């Protein structure tokens, strides 16, 4: 088995601040994803990466940057935190390259609050 570790678990930021969320997986999976979870809106894809140094935009990429320097890690940067923003950011990985008939394995999430 493997695990996805997201750090930090909780993140409190100030309006306009640049914030970075990190994700590590030890499944040796090719593809990694960042999703944003808002109450009542489900999971929306921000970025995904099918291999090291690859980046693909999802439906919600505006306001975010991502980086995949190693196969095992994928980081997400909120470029300018929005006041009163509250969401859970979920990292996931899957075996094959790109979205397909694959199981996504999720981390426990980073809970962001912006003051």
């Amino acid at each position, binding site marked *: 088995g493997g695990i996805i570790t997201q750090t930090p678990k909780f993140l409190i930021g100030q309006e306009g601040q640049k914030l970075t969320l990190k994700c590590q997986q030890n499944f040796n999976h090719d593809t990694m994803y960042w999703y944003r979870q808002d109450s009542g*809106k489900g999971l929306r*894809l921000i970025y995904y990466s099918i291999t090291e140094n690859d980046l693909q935009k999802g439906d919600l990429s505006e306001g975010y940057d991502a980086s995949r320097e190693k196969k095992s890690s994928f980081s997400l940067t909120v470029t300018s935190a929005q006041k009163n923003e509250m969401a859970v950011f979920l990292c996931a990985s899957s075996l094959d390259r790109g979205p397909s008939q694959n199981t996504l394995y999720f981390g426990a999430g980073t809970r962001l609050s912006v003051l």
Partner: protein
Amino acid sequence: QQQVRQSSQSLTVWEGETAILNCSYENSAFDYFPWYQQFPGEGPALLIAIRSVSDKKEDGRFTIFFNKREKNLSLHIKDSQPGDSATYFCAATGNYKYVFGAGTRLKVIA
């Protein structure tokens, strides 16, 4: 646009009843439909999935019924237990897309 729609935001059933969670989709290119279960404070985890060539998939107390012509599916949880209380996400994949519904929060009362 919402490509995957779950008809109920929340559902409450008594212990022992069958909980039925409904989902519909728009894109005919979707060919794989997983359901994910999420407990508070955790990430979603795959519960059960069906491919579009099948109309039913069963795994213990959990069954997916799939109607390709109507583009809808449902998750049936037989003999619901309080431990089944969680949020359930219907998802659809195909053509390099993996789309989630908004989720149904299920509460099972003992």
